[in-house]
Protein backbone atom coordinates (compact mmCIF):
# COMPACT_ATOMS: atom_id res chain seq x y z
CA UNK A 1 0.00 0.00 0.00
CA UNK A 2 2.76 2.42 0.96
CA UNK A 3 4.75 1.55 -2.13
CA UNK A 4 1.64 2.10 -4.27
CA UNK A 5 1.26 5.57 -2.78
CA UNK A 6 4.95 6.29 -3.34
CA UNK A 7 4.53 5.22 -6.95
CA UNK A 8 1.54 7.53 -7.37
CA UNK A 9 3.55 10.40 -5.94
CA UNK A 10 6.54 9.75 -8.15
CA UNK A 11 4.42 9.42 -11.26
CA UNK A 12 2.57 12.62 -10.42
CA UNK A 13 5.81 14.59 -10.40
CA UNK A 14 6.58 13.34 -13.86
CA UNK A 15 4.00 15.87 -15.02
CA UNK A 16 6.75 18.44 -14.77
CA UNK A 17 9.47 16.38 -16.36
CA UNK A 18 10.93 17.04 -19.79
CA UNK A 19 8.92 15.55 -22.66
CA UNK A 20 10.66 12.71 -24.47
CA UNK A 21 8.46 12.88 -27.57
CA UNK A 22 9.66 15.16 -30.34
CA UNK A 23 6.70 16.85 -32.12
CA UNK A 24 8.00 15.66 -35.43
CA UNK A 25 7.02 17.79 -38.42
CA UNK A 26 7.58 21.02 -36.49
CA UNK A 27 10.77 19.92 -34.82
CA UNK A 28 13.14 17.50 -36.48
CA UNK A 29 15.87 15.54 -34.85
CA UNK A 30 19.22 15.85 -36.59
CA UNK A 31 19.91 12.68 -38.53
CA UNK A 32 23.44 11.29 -38.44
CA UNK A 33 25.33 11.54 -41.75
CA UNK A 34 25.47 7.78 -42.09
CA UNK A 35 21.70 7.43 -41.59
CA UNK A 36 20.27 4.93 -44.06
CA UNK A 37 17.57 6.79 -45.95
CA UNK A 38 16.74 7.56 -49.58
CA UNK A 39 19.13 5.95 -52.06
CA UNK A 40 21.11 8.09 -54.49
CA UNK A 41 23.52 7.42 -57.36
CA UNK A 42 26.63 9.58 -57.15
CA UNK A 43 29.13 10.89 -59.67
CA UNK A 44 32.90 10.85 -59.51
CA UNK A 45 34.88 14.14 -59.17
CA UNK A 46 34.97 14.51 -62.96
CA UNK A 47 31.20 14.53 -63.08
CA UNK A 48 30.91 11.08 -64.66
CA UNK A 49 28.52 8.46 -63.37
CA UNK A 50 30.26 6.18 -60.88
CA UNK A 51 27.96 3.24 -61.52
CA UNK A 52 29.52 0.55 -63.68
CA UNK A 53 26.33 -1.53 -63.83
CA UNK A 54 27.92 -4.58 -62.20
CA UNK A 55 24.56 -5.74 -60.75
CA UNK A 56 26.13 -6.38 -57.33
CA UNK A 57 23.63 -4.08 -55.63
CA UNK A 58 20.70 -5.79 -57.30
CA UNK A 59 22.12 -9.16 -56.29
CA UNK A 60 22.70 -8.05 -52.69
CA UNK A 61 19.26 -6.52 -52.32
CA UNK A 62 17.21 -8.80 -50.05
CA UNK A 63 13.90 -7.47 -51.29
CA UNK A 64 14.76 -7.17 -54.98
CA UNK A 65 13.88 -3.51 -55.17
CA UNK A 66 16.77 -2.56 -57.49
CA UNK A 67 16.51 -3.14 -61.23
CA UNK A 68 19.06 -2.04 -63.80
CA UNK A 69 20.35 -2.79 -67.27
CA UNK A 70 24.04 -2.55 -68.21
CA UNK A 71 25.23 -1.00 -71.40
CA UNK A 72 28.49 0.46 -72.76
CA UNK A 73 29.29 3.88 -74.12
CA UNK A 74 31.55 4.70 -77.08
CA UNK A 75 34.68 4.46 -74.90
CA UNK A 76 33.83 0.98 -73.69
CA UNK A 77 32.76 2.26 -70.27
CA UNK A 78 29.93 0.35 -68.64
CA UNK A 79 27.00 2.32 -67.32
CA UNK A 80 23.37 1.50 -66.53
CA UNK A 81 20.92 2.13 -69.35
CA UNK A 82 18.23 2.35 -66.71
CA UNK A 83 18.44 2.15 -62.94
CA UNK A 84 15.29 1.75 -60.96
CA UNK A 85 14.78 1.61 -57.18
CA UNK A 86 11.35 0.79 -55.84
CA UNK A 87 11.19 2.61 -52.51
CA UNK A 88 7.90 0.96 -51.80
CA UNK A 89 9.85 -2.25 -51.34
CA UNK A 90 13.18 -0.92 -50.11
CA UNK A 91 13.91 -1.77 -46.48
CA UNK A 92 16.88 0.61 -46.26
CA UNK A 93 19.23 -2.15 -45.12
CA UNK A 94 22.21 -0.57 -46.88
CA UNK A 95 23.41 -3.86 -48.37
CA UNK A 96 23.53 -2.26 -51.83
CA UNK A 97 25.86 0.43 -50.53
CA UNK A 98 28.11 -2.22 -48.98
CA UNK A 99 28.11 -4.30 -52.15
CA UNK A 100 28.93 -1.40 -54.46
CA UNK A 101 32.57 -1.59 -55.63
CA UNK A 102 32.61 2.00 -56.88
CA UNK A 103 30.80 3.95 -54.13
CA UNK A 104 28.16 4.76 -56.73
CA UNK A 105 25.06 3.78 -54.76
CA UNK A 106 24.75 5.51 -51.40
CA UNK A 107 22.11 5.94 -48.75
CA UNK A 108 21.37 9.46 -47.56
CA UNK A 109 19.89 10.90 -44.36
CA UNK A 110 16.55 11.65 -45.99
CA UNK A 111 13.73 9.54 -44.64
CA UNK A 112 10.69 11.58 -45.70
CA UNK A 113 9.53 9.46 -48.61
CA UNK A 114 5.82 9.19 -47.85
CA UNK A 115 3.58 9.50 -50.86
CA UNK A 116 -0.04 9.05 -51.82
CA UNK A 117 0.69 6.90 -54.88
CA UNK A 118 2.76 3.75 -54.89
CA UNK A 119 3.87 4.36 -58.43
CA UNK A 120 5.56 7.60 -57.46
CA UNK A 121 7.78 5.65 -55.05
CA UNK A 122 9.50 4.00 -58.01
CA UNK A 123 12.53 6.16 -58.69
CA UNK A 124 14.23 6.09 -62.09
CA UNK A 125 17.84 6.96 -62.81
CA UNK A 126 17.12 10.64 -63.39
CA UNK A 127 15.58 10.82 -59.92
CA UNK A 128 18.39 8.90 -58.26
CA UNK A 129 21.40 10.51 -59.89
CA UNK A 130 22.83 13.45 -57.99
CA UNK A 131 25.45 15.88 -59.27
CA UNK A 132 28.05 15.36 -56.52
CA UNK A 133 30.22 12.60 -55.13
CA UNK A 134 28.12 11.93 -52.02
CA UNK A 135 29.97 10.74 -48.95
CA UNK A 136 33.25 9.89 -50.73
CA UNK A 137 34.96 12.93 -52.17
CA UNK A 138 37.74 12.60 -54.67
CA UNK A 139 37.19 8.92 -55.32
CA UNK A 140 37.09 7.83 -58.91
CA UNK A 141 36.92 4.13 -59.58
CA UNK A 142 38.63 4.17 -62.94
CA UNK A 143 41.57 6.14 -61.61
CA UNK A 144 42.48 3.40 -59.15
CA UNK A 145 41.10 0.36 -60.92
CA UNK A 146 43.97 -0.42 -63.27
CA UNK A 147 41.61 -1.33 -66.04
CA UNK A 148 41.88 0.39 -69.41
CA UNK A 149 38.95 2.44 -70.59
CA UNK A 150 38.48 5.18 -73.11
CA UNK A 151 40.52 8.27 -72.12
CA UNK A 152 42.71 6.31 -69.69
CA UNK A 153 45.09 3.60 -70.61
CA UNK A 154 46.78 1.06 -68.37
CA UNK A 155 49.29 2.58 -65.99
CA UNK A 156 47.85 6.09 -66.16
CA UNK A 157 45.89 5.86 -62.95
CA UNK A 158 46.87 7.00 -59.44
CA UNK A 159 49.59 4.97 -57.65
CA UNK A 160 50.03 3.02 -60.81
CA UNK A 161 53.17 2.23 -62.79
CA UNK A 162 53.20 1.72 -66.52
CA UNK A 163 52.86 -1.93 -67.48
CA UNK A 164 56.11 -3.81 -67.36
CA UNK A 165 57.38 -5.61 -70.45
CA UNK A 166 57.81 -9.07 -68.98
CA UNK A 167 60.15 -10.08 -71.77
CA UNK A 168 62.42 -7.15 -70.91
CA UNK A 169 63.21 -8.70 -67.57
CA UNK A 170 65.25 -11.49 -69.12
CA UNK A 171 68.64 -11.87 -67.40
Amino acid sequence: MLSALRTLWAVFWHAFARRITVPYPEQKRPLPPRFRGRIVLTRDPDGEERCVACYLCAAACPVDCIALQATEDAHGRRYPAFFRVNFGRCIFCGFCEEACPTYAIQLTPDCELADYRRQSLVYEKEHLLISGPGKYHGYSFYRVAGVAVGGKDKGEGDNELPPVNVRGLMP
Partner: protein
Amino acid sequence: MTRLGAMLAKVNAAALLPELLIVLGVLIGALTLAGGLTFVERRLLALWQDRRGPNRVGPFGLLQVVADTIKLFTKEDWVPPFADKPVFVVAPAIIIVSTLMSFAVIPLAPGIVVADLNVGLLFFLGMSSLAVYSITLGGWSANSKYALLGALRAAGQMVSYEVFMGLSLMGVVAMAGSFNLGAIVQAQRHVWFCIPQCVGLVVFLIAGLAETRRIPFDLPEAEGELVAGFHTEYSGMKFGMFFLGEYVGVALISALTVVLFFGGWSGPILPPIAWFLGKTAVLIGLFILVRAALPRLRYDQLMRLGWKVLLPLSLANVAVTGAVILALGR
Protein backbone atom coordinates in the same frame (compact mmCIF):
# COMPACT_ATOMS: atom_id res chain seq x y z
CA MET B 1 -58.21 10.80 -24.91
CA THR B 2 -60.05 13.48 -23.02
CA ARG B 3 -58.69 12.21 -19.74
CA LEU B 4 -55.16 12.29 -21.12
CA GLY B 5 -55.76 15.80 -22.35
CA ALA B 6 -57.02 16.84 -18.94
CA MET B 7 -53.99 15.28 -17.29
CA LEU B 8 -51.65 17.08 -19.65
CA ALA B 9 -53.45 20.33 -19.02
CA LYS B 10 -52.96 19.88 -15.31
CA VAL B 11 -49.22 19.52 -15.71
CA ASN B 12 -47.79 22.95 -15.52
CA ALA B 13 -45.53 23.35 -18.53
CA ALA B 14 -43.63 26.18 -16.92
CA ALA B 15 -42.83 24.03 -13.89
CA LEU B 16 -41.79 21.12 -16.06
CA LEU B 17 -39.31 23.03 -18.17
CA PRO B 18 -36.50 23.39 -15.59
CA GLU B 19 -36.86 19.71 -14.73
CA LEU B 20 -36.49 18.77 -18.38
CA LEU B 21 -33.50 21.06 -18.70
CA ILE B 22 -31.85 19.37 -15.72
CA VAL B 23 -32.53 15.92 -17.17
CA LEU B 24 -31.14 16.86 -20.56
CA GLY B 25 -28.24 18.71 -18.99
CA VAL B 26 -27.21 15.74 -16.86
CA LEU B 27 -27.65 13.29 -19.74
CA ILE B 28 -25.73 15.34 -22.29
CA GLY B 29 -23.23 16.46 -19.67
CA ALA B 30 -22.46 12.91 -18.57
CA LEU B 31 -22.11 11.63 -22.14
CA THR B 32 -19.96 14.56 -23.22
CA LEU B 33 -17.83 14.18 -20.13
CA ALA B 34 -17.37 10.48 -20.86
CA GLY B 35 -16.48 11.21 -24.47
CA GLY B 36 -14.12 13.97 -23.45
CA LEU B 37 -12.53 11.69 -20.87
CA THR B 38 -11.19 9.43 -23.61
CA PHE B 39 -9.15 12.39 -24.76
CA VAL B 40 -8.35 13.79 -21.31
CA GLU B 41 -7.18 10.40 -20.12
CA ARG B 42 -4.82 9.99 -23.04
CA ARG B 43 -3.39 13.47 -22.54
CA LEU B 44 -2.98 12.98 -18.80
CA LEU B 45 -1.40 9.55 -19.21
CA ALA B 46 1.00 11.12 -21.65
CA LEU B 47 1.69 13.95 -19.20
CA TRP B 48 2.65 11.49 -16.48
CA GLN B 49 4.68 9.31 -18.80
CA ASP B 50 6.77 12.17 -20.23
CA ARG B 51 4.99 11.98 -23.57
CA ARG B 52 2.77 14.50 -25.33
CA GLY B 53 -0.33 12.51 -26.17
CA PRO B 54 -2.75 13.16 -29.03
CA ASN B 55 -2.18 16.79 -30.02
CA ARG B 56 -2.66 16.74 -33.77
CA VAL B 57 -6.41 16.98 -34.44
CA GLY B 58 -7.61 20.52 -33.83
CA PRO B 59 -6.24 22.88 -31.18
CA PHE B 60 -4.37 20.86 -28.53
CA GLY B 61 -5.83 17.75 -30.16
CA LEU B 62 -9.29 18.58 -28.80
CA LEU B 63 -11.00 17.26 -31.91
CA GLN B 64 -9.44 13.83 -31.36
CA VAL B 65 -12.73 12.81 -29.73
CA VAL B 66 -14.63 13.73 -32.88
CA ALA B 67 -12.15 11.85 -35.04
CA ASP B 68 -12.40 8.77 -32.83
CA THR B 69 -16.18 8.89 -32.88
CA ILE B 70 -16.28 9.15 -36.66
CA LYS B 71 -13.88 6.24 -36.85
CA LEU B 72 -15.98 4.11 -34.52
CA PHE B 73 -19.16 4.86 -36.47
CA THR B 74 -17.62 4.05 -39.82
CA LYS B 75 -16.13 0.77 -38.67
CA GLU B 76 -17.79 -2.48 -39.61
CA ASP B 77 -20.30 -3.34 -36.90
CA TRP B 78 -19.73 -7.06 -36.94
CA VAL B 79 -21.66 -9.66 -35.01
CA PRO B 80 -19.84 -12.99 -35.05
CA PRO B 81 -21.90 -15.81 -36.55
CA PHE B 82 -21.27 -17.96 -33.48
CA ALA B 83 -22.55 -15.31 -31.08
CA ASP B 84 -25.89 -15.26 -29.32
CA LYS B 85 -27.13 -12.32 -31.32
CA PRO B 86 -29.89 -10.67 -29.22
CA VAL B 87 -27.84 -10.83 -26.01
CA PHE B 88 -24.74 -9.73 -27.87
CA VAL B 89 -26.52 -6.62 -29.12
CA VAL B 90 -28.23 -5.77 -25.84
CA ALA B 91 -25.18 -6.18 -23.56
CA PRO B 92 -23.38 -2.93 -24.49
CA ALA B 93 -26.59 -0.96 -24.00
CA ILE B 94 -27.04 -2.25 -20.44
CA ILE B 95 -23.81 -0.76 -19.15
CA ILE B 96 -24.56 2.67 -20.61
CA VAL B 97 -28.13 2.64 -19.34
CA SER B 98 -27.23 1.45 -15.85
CA THR B 99 -24.39 3.93 -15.35
CA LEU B 100 -26.36 6.83 -16.79
CA MET B 101 -29.33 5.95 -14.57
CA SER B 102 -27.08 6.31 -11.53
CA PHE B 103 -26.35 9.90 -12.54
CA ALA B 104 -30.02 10.65 -11.95
CA VAL B 105 -29.64 10.52 -8.16
CA ILE B 106 -26.47 12.60 -7.94
CA PRO B 107 -27.11 16.13 -6.66
CA LEU B 108 -24.97 18.57 -8.64
CA ALA B 109 -25.95 21.60 -6.60
CA PRO B 110 -28.80 22.52 -4.23
CA GLY B 111 -31.96 21.71 -6.19
CA ILE B 112 -30.14 20.49 -9.30
CA VAL B 113 -30.83 16.77 -9.25
CA VAL B 114 -32.82 14.65 -11.67
CA ALA B 115 -34.46 12.37 -9.14
CA ASP B 116 -34.29 13.29 -5.46
CA LEU B 117 -34.78 9.70 -4.27
CA ASN B 118 -34.79 9.00 -0.56
CA VAL B 119 -32.96 5.73 -1.32
CA GLY B 120 -30.55 7.35 -3.76
CA LEU B 121 -27.51 5.48 -2.51
CA LEU B 122 -29.26 2.11 -2.70
CA PHE B 123 -30.42 3.00 -6.19
CA PHE B 124 -26.81 3.62 -7.20
CA LEU B 125 -25.67 0.33 -5.68
CA GLY B 126 -28.46 -1.51 -7.48
CA MET B 127 -27.57 0.10 -10.79
CA SER B 128 -23.89 -0.72 -10.43
CA SER B 129 -24.90 -4.33 -9.77
CA LEU B 130 -26.83 -4.27 -13.04
CA ALA B 131 -23.66 -3.19 -14.85
CA VAL B 132 -22.21 -6.60 -14.05
CA TYR B 133 -24.86 -8.12 -16.31
CA SER B 134 -23.63 -6.09 -19.23
CA ILE B 135 -20.08 -7.37 -18.89
CA THR B 136 -21.03 -10.94 -18.13
CA LEU B 137 -23.67 -11.22 -20.85
CA GLY B 138 -21.39 -9.50 -23.35
CA GLY B 139 -18.60 -11.97 -22.65
CA TRP B 140 -20.93 -14.95 -22.52
CA SER B 141 -22.87 -14.21 -25.67
CA ALA B 142 -19.72 -13.65 -27.70
CA ASN B 143 -19.18 -17.39 -27.39
CA SER B 144 -15.42 -17.16 -27.53
CA LYS B 145 -12.85 -18.40 -25.05
CA TYR B 146 -11.17 -15.13 -24.17
CA ALA B 147 -14.45 -13.28 -23.87
CA LEU B 148 -15.80 -15.97 -21.59
CA LEU B 149 -12.72 -15.89 -19.37
CA GLY B 150 -12.96 -12.12 -19.18
CA ALA B 151 -16.64 -12.30 -18.34
CA LEU B 152 -16.03 -14.86 -15.60
CA ARG B 153 -13.34 -12.70 -14.06
CA ALA B 154 -15.58 -9.66 -14.33
CA ALA B 155 -18.46 -11.44 -12.66
CA GLY B 156 -16.29 -12.65 -9.79
CA GLN B 157 -14.54 -9.34 -9.34
CA MET B 158 -17.54 -7.07 -9.59
CA VAL B 159 -19.80 -9.17 -7.40
CA SER B 160 -17.09 -9.38 -4.71
CA TYR B 161 -16.27 -5.69 -4.77
CA GLU B 162 -19.94 -4.79 -4.79
CA VAL B 163 -20.08 -6.16 -1.25
CA PHE B 164 -17.53 -3.87 0.35
CA MET B 165 -18.52 -0.98 -1.87
CA GLY B 166 -21.90 -1.11 -0.16
CA LEU B 167 -20.39 -1.80 3.27
CA SER B 168 -17.87 1.01 3.01
CA LEU B 169 -20.72 3.46 2.47
CA MET B 170 -22.69 2.34 5.49
CA GLY B 171 -20.53 4.48 7.77
CA VAL B 172 -21.44 7.53 5.71
CA VAL B 173 -25.10 6.58 5.80
CA ALA B 174 -24.97 6.07 9.56
CA MET B 175 -23.35 9.47 10.10
CA ALA B 176 -25.74 11.28 7.76
CA GLY B 177 -28.77 9.29 8.89
CA SER B 178 -30.11 9.11 5.35
CA PHE B 179 -29.74 7.32 2.05
CA ASN B 180 -30.64 10.51 0.22
CA LEU B 181 -27.53 11.91 -1.44
CA GLY B 182 -28.70 15.49 -1.01
CA ALA B 183 -29.16 14.88 2.71
CA ILE B 184 -25.70 13.31 2.89
CA VAL B 185 -24.19 16.45 1.39
CA GLN B 186 -26.19 18.56 3.86
CA ALA B 187 -24.82 16.46 6.71
CA GLN B 188 -21.26 17.43 5.73
CA ARG B 189 -21.75 21.12 6.57
CA HIS B 190 -19.29 21.01 9.46
CA VAL B 191 -16.78 18.36 8.45
CA TRP B 192 -16.44 16.45 5.24
CA PHE B 193 -16.89 12.72 5.68
CA CYS B 194 -13.45 12.08 4.18
CA ILE B 195 -12.00 12.79 7.64
CA PRO B 196 -14.15 10.68 9.99
CA GLN B 197 -14.75 8.08 7.27
CA CYS B 198 -11.23 7.92 5.80
CA VAL B 199 -11.24 4.11 5.92
CA GLY B 200 -14.57 4.08 4.11
CA LEU B 201 -13.15 6.49 1.55
CA VAL B 202 -10.15 4.31 0.80
CA VAL B 203 -12.25 1.15 0.56
CA PHE B 204 -14.80 2.91 -1.61
CA LEU B 205 -12.13 4.24 -3.97
CA ILE B 206 -10.55 0.80 -4.34
CA ALA B 207 -13.95 -0.82 -4.83
CA GLY B 208 -14.82 1.91 -7.30
CA LEU B 209 -11.68 1.16 -9.30
CA ALA B 210 -12.67 -2.49 -9.36
CA GLU B 211 -16.27 -1.69 -10.29
CA THR B 212 -15.19 0.42 -13.26
CA ARG B 213 -12.58 -2.22 -14.20
CA ARG B 214 -9.81 0.35 -14.28
CA ILE B 215 -6.17 -0.50 -14.49
CA PRO B 216 -4.99 -2.04 -11.24
CA PHE B 217 -8.17 -4.13 -11.46
CA ASP B 218 -8.68 -4.43 -15.20
CA LEU B 219 -8.47 -8.21 -15.17
CA PRO B 220 -11.70 -8.65 -17.14
CA GLU B 221 -10.03 -7.08 -20.16
CA ALA B 222 -6.37 -7.79 -19.36
CA GLU B 223 -4.84 -7.14 -22.78
CA GLY B 224 -1.73 -9.12 -22.01
CA GLU B 225 -3.60 -12.29 -21.22
CA LEU B 226 -7.10 -12.18 -22.70
CA VAL B 227 -6.74 -10.17 -25.96
CA ALA B 228 -9.41 -7.71 -24.84
CA GLY B 229 -11.33 -9.78 -22.31
CA PHE B 230 -15.08 -9.64 -22.37
CA HIS B 231 -15.25 -7.31 -25.39
CA THR B 232 -12.87 -9.30 -27.56
CA GLU B 233 -15.54 -9.97 -30.19
CA TYR B 234 -17.02 -6.48 -30.17
CA SER B 235 -16.28 -3.93 -32.84
CA GLY B 236 -17.50 -0.57 -34.06
CA MET B 237 -19.89 1.39 -31.92
CA LYS B 238 -20.81 -1.62 -29.76
CA PHE B 239 -17.22 -1.64 -28.59
CA GLY B 240 -17.51 2.12 -28.28
CA MET B 241 -20.47 1.66 -25.94
CA PHE B 242 -18.42 -0.51 -23.58
CA PHE B 243 -15.69 2.07 -23.73
CA LEU B 244 -18.09 4.92 -23.08
CA GLY B 245 -19.68 2.93 -20.27
CA GLU B 246 -16.30 2.61 -18.58
CA TYR B 247 -15.73 6.35 -18.73
CA VAL B 248 -19.26 7.18 -17.58
CA GLY B 249 -18.51 4.79 -14.72
CA VAL B 250 -15.31 6.65 -13.86
CA ALA B 251 -17.15 9.97 -13.87
CA LEU B 252 -19.93 8.42 -11.80
CA ILE B 253 -17.64 6.99 -9.13
CA SER B 254 -15.76 10.29 -8.96
CA ALA B 255 -18.96 12.31 -8.64
CA LEU B 256 -20.25 9.91 -6.01
CA THR B 257 -17.03 10.10 -4.02
CA VAL B 258 -17.34 13.87 -4.05
CA VAL B 259 -20.94 13.69 -2.88
CA LEU B 260 -20.30 11.11 -0.16
CA PHE B 261 -16.90 12.10 1.18
CA PHE B 262 -15.89 15.56 -0.06
CA GLY B 263 -18.90 17.65 0.78
CA GLY B 264 -20.51 17.61 -2.65
CA TRP B 265 -21.23 21.13 -3.85
CA SER B 266 -20.14 22.90 -0.66
CA GLY B 267 -17.29 25.36 -0.83
CA PRO B 268 -16.65 29.08 -0.49
CA ILE B 269 -16.96 31.91 -3.06
CA LEU B 270 -17.47 29.88 -6.25
CA PRO B 271 -20.99 28.74 -7.20
CA PRO B 272 -21.90 25.25 -5.87
CA ILE B 273 -21.95 23.64 -9.31
CA ALA B 274 -18.39 24.82 -9.96
CA TRP B 275 -17.24 23.31 -6.68
CA PHE B 276 -18.94 20.03 -7.51
CA LEU B 277 -17.47 19.84 -11.01
CA GLY B 278 -14.03 20.92 -9.81
CA LYS B 279 -13.87 18.28 -7.10
CA THR B 280 -15.13 15.65 -9.53
CA ALA B 281 -12.44 16.64 -12.03
CA VAL B 282 -9.73 16.23 -9.38
CA LEU B 283 -11.00 12.76 -8.51
CA ILE B 284 -11.17 11.76 -12.17
CA GLY B 285 -7.57 12.94 -12.40
CA LEU B 286 -6.74 10.70 -9.46
CA PHE B 287 -8.34 7.75 -11.23
CA ILE B 288 -6.21 8.41 -14.29
CA LEU B 289 -3.10 8.87 -12.16
CA VAL B 290 -3.72 5.45 -10.63
CA ARG B 291 -3.93 4.02 -14.12
CA ALA B 292 -0.70 5.75 -15.11
CA ALA B 293 1.18 4.51 -12.07
CA LEU B 294 0.07 1.09 -10.92
CA PRO B 295 0.42 -2.32 -12.56
CA ARG B 296 -2.36 -4.87 -12.86
CA LEU B 297 -2.94 -7.26 -9.97
CA ARG B 298 -2.97 -11.01 -10.32
CA TYR B 299 -6.41 -12.52 -10.01
CA ASP B 300 -5.81 -14.33 -6.72
CA GLN B 301 -4.23 -11.15 -5.30
CA LEU B 302 -7.31 -9.26 -6.33
CA MET B 303 -9.63 -11.69 -4.59
CA ARG B 304 -7.42 -11.91 -1.52
CA LEU B 305 -7.24 -8.12 -1.23
CA GLY B 306 -11.00 -8.00 -1.52
CA TRP B 307 -12.10 -10.69 0.88
CA LYS B 308 -9.24 -10.75 3.37
CA VAL B 309 -8.39 -7.06 3.66
CA LEU B 310 -11.16 -4.82 2.42
CA LEU B 311 -14.10 -6.79 3.76
CA PRO B 312 -12.85 -6.95 7.39
CA LEU B 313 -11.72 -3.35 7.10
CA SER B 314 -15.10 -2.09 5.96
CA LEU B 315 -16.90 -4.24 8.54
CA ALA B 316 -14.67 -2.82 11.28
CA ASN B 317 -15.35 0.65 9.92
CA VAL B 318 -19.11 0.11 10.14
CA ALA B 319 -18.81 -1.29 13.67
CA VAL B 320 -16.56 1.52 14.94
CA THR B 321 -18.69 4.22 13.31
CA GLY B 322 -21.82 2.71 14.84
CA ALA B 323 -20.21 2.47 18.28
CA VAL B 324 -18.99 6.07 18.16
CA ILE B 325 -22.38 7.37 17.05
CA LEU B 326 -24.01 5.35 19.82
CA ALA B 327 -21.51 6.61 22.42
CA LEU B 328 -22.00 10.23 21.38
CA GLY B 329 -25.71 9.60 21.73
CA ARG B 330 -26.78 11.24 18.50
